[in-house]
């Protein structure tokens, strides 16, 4: 199977869905590469990370809409377009910019189906970059899946590699509900085997990337790699961990998590989001409310501290959960 980067896999998913369905359109800042700007070559950039490069050439400016720097306006336009029957894929450059378009997301997109008694659909996808590691400082490095998961009515997806991203993005585009699609910016060049043909991965079905009986490690997005690394270190110490890539925080595959805890009795959650009221705490709550009798040790959470993402590279490296910290947490729950 061909090896593709996360960037290529997402580009391929977008192109294939746009070919399949003429109602799929794209909207966002610089996604067509500064079109309309003075002296700017068309399709020069393909978005800030080059993810959408080439789509303008194939689908034209009517379906690949480059916007001014105004999330307030174009996310609102995407919500309206979805309500009116298109399948827009909006690109919010960084999830940190949710702040200026949150009413559109939280009060409009997330509420339509509910408030119109199921008669309205909101087939909207908002792609956004998350993640620390580029020393991009506190306003461009957050991982806000927790914030989005808190809002009923949104589906929240965070793929862990290129294969996952393509299948989940196609599924998200075909889904009739608003899907927040979170791409970790440090992973765009990471390669994985990705089929050329379109395929879908259902939302709300977790995937085991390691399968062992001694403890359960739950992770999402880039943290799945950290969890896998930790599991491999543990394996050479004779400890077999299950690693669950939950793929989506909404809907959440509770069964897979609970059943694994019932098998292993020990849980570590790894997450790059803020710890307070966050994803890790949510999974811990699931464990103690649904699988308390099976737990043999306190649940351990490996998260950043509850601080903004630091700018200094040294501090940022300490901020992001590491495999060593996951191993240490695993050892604690194993010794308890």
């Amino acid at each position, binding site marked *: 199977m061909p090896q593709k980067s996360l960037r290529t896999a997402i580009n391929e998913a977008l192109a294939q869905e746009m070919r399949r369905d003429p109602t799929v359109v794209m909207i966002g800042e610089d996604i067509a590469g500064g079109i309309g700007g003075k002296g700017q070559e068309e399709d020069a950039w393909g978005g800030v990370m080059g993810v959408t490069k080439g789509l303008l050439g194939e689908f034209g400016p009517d379906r690949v809409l480059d916007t001014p720097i105004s999330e307030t306006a174009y996310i609102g336009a995407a919500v309206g377009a979805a309500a009116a029957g298109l399948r827009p894929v909006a690109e919010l450059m960084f999830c940190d910019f949710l702040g200026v378009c949150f009413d559109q997301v939280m009060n409009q997109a997330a509420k339509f189906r509910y408030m119109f008694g199921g008669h309205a659909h909101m087939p909207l996808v908002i792609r956004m970059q998350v993640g620390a590691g580029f020393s991009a400082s506190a306003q461009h490095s957050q991982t806000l899946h927790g914030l989005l998961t808190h809002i009923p009515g949104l589906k929240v997806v965070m793929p862990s590699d290129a294969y996952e991203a393509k299948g989940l993005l196609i599924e998200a585009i075909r889904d009739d509900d608003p899907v927040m699609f979170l791409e970790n910016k440090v992973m765009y060049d990471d390669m994985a085997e990705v089929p050329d043909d379109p395929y879908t991965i259902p939302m709300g079905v977790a995937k085991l990337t390691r399968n062992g009986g001694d403890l359960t490690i739950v992770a999402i997005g880039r943290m799945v790699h950290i969890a896998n690394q930790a599991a491999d270190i543990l394996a*050479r*110490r004779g400890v077999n961990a299950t690693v669950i890539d939950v793929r989506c925080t909404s*809907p959440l595959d509770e069964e*897979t998590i609970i*059943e694994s805890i019932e098998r292993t009795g020990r849980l570590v959650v790894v997450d790059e989001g803020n710890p307070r009221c966050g994803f890790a705490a949510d999974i811990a709550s699931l464990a103690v409310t649904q699988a308390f009798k099976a737990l043999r040790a306190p649940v351990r959470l490996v998260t950043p501290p509850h601080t903004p993402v630091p700018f200094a590279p040294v501090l940022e490296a300490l901020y992001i959960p590491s495999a060593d910290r996951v191993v240490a947490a695993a050892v604690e729950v194993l010794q308890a």
Partner: protein
Amino acid sequence: MTGSIHPVTIPKWGLSMQEGTVAVWHKAVGDVVAVGDVIADIESTKIANELEARASGVLRRRLFAEGDVCPVGTLIGIIAQGDVADADLDAFIDAFVIEEDDARETDDPVEQILFGGAASPSDQPGATVIPDPLRAHGRQSEVFATDETLRLAALWDVDLGKVTGTGRGGRISKSDMVAAITAAGGSVGSETEPARTVPAGPLVGQSLDATSVDRHRFAALHVAARASPAKPPILLIHGFGGDHDGWTLNQGILASDRDVYAIDLPGHGGSTSDVKTGTFADLATLVTAWMDARGLSGVHLVGHSMGAAVAVTVAGLRTDLVRSVTAIAGIGFGGLPDQNYLTGFAGATDTDMLRPAVEKLFTRAELVTPDVLDALMVYKRKAGVTDALGRLIDQALNVSSIAAVTAQRQALMVPMFAIYGERDRILPTTDSERLAASLVVAGAGHMPQTEAADTINRAIADFVGRHD
């Protein structure tokens, strides 16, 4: 005394095995057997496999003939020393009852030691009953189910095509399957796997310290005793190319009632790369200086491989510092190290070159993950390390130096205990070379402290406890 009588029983290989056929006897009555020797071939309805001896001695009795079919756990033979009376053997046979343990699933020998026969309670007879209409008979339908449901369905032979899923999208969960089993008149035993002691790295009461003596900086990990008053301490000494991290599975466990130190030898881990001329005497002199600086005396030394030779040399230099010596796959305790391993390890300049050498350490090559190799390459690239390893190969790990350590060991009056990996490929030993007071770990390679940590920890705790 039945302690020296060892039963040979029909093993349980796999969930469905209820009985086994004694296909071939490989040992005759009166034959000497060692741990790991193949005694017989046993056939179940699914597989044929070799039954290995779990104890050394003489095969004194064969209770069934080739072709006989016996239930799992049945006593089919007796291993005992030649001087055990026939009447005692008869009494043992009369008193023998099939134990639950014998009816458990066993696996790879190393797994068995590591996990104490990791069988889920559902494997125990009577715990889980799958009614026949629900059985898959090995053929699984294409279904949408959780991973755990799929795993258990395969284990329990349940046809998930006959189970209705109530989850999102009709997904079958474990509770759906359990409900279907119960509704059909079956039953499900305890669903969790049995708790096992998981040996893991020390975290509580540990400190990584650095002590400089004689211009040598020593790194050592100290884990404080969890009980007081603490018994005499243990000092762990790693082997060639190792460091204190190699005792991850042992140090915390051994620290239950005594302080346990794991030193990085010169040229290793976080200690100074300078090994002086690289002889055992140089290493031992530096270690004694460190022990003096730390105020350690009357210590139980536990050495792995080259570390065992260092331990013997320390004991020879300063008997006052040493209470006992435990050697794990120890140099000077039989056999000679594989020179190809030593030069291959020292000479490797990338992980691809390193892998074949490091894989030889273990019986199970999968224990050598990319992380292990990466960590070793980081160590090997440190300034002075290549030179240090070369000196140790030249000055310490040669035939005459090892012979000197062996002679030293034989002359010492210190209590000694030796542990061997049965399948050690770095320092292979034969029965006749091994110490009488020894433990041979079936299935383990050169790293029994990692490959069979539970067994090793118990053996060391027992030995040092008898020599406090």
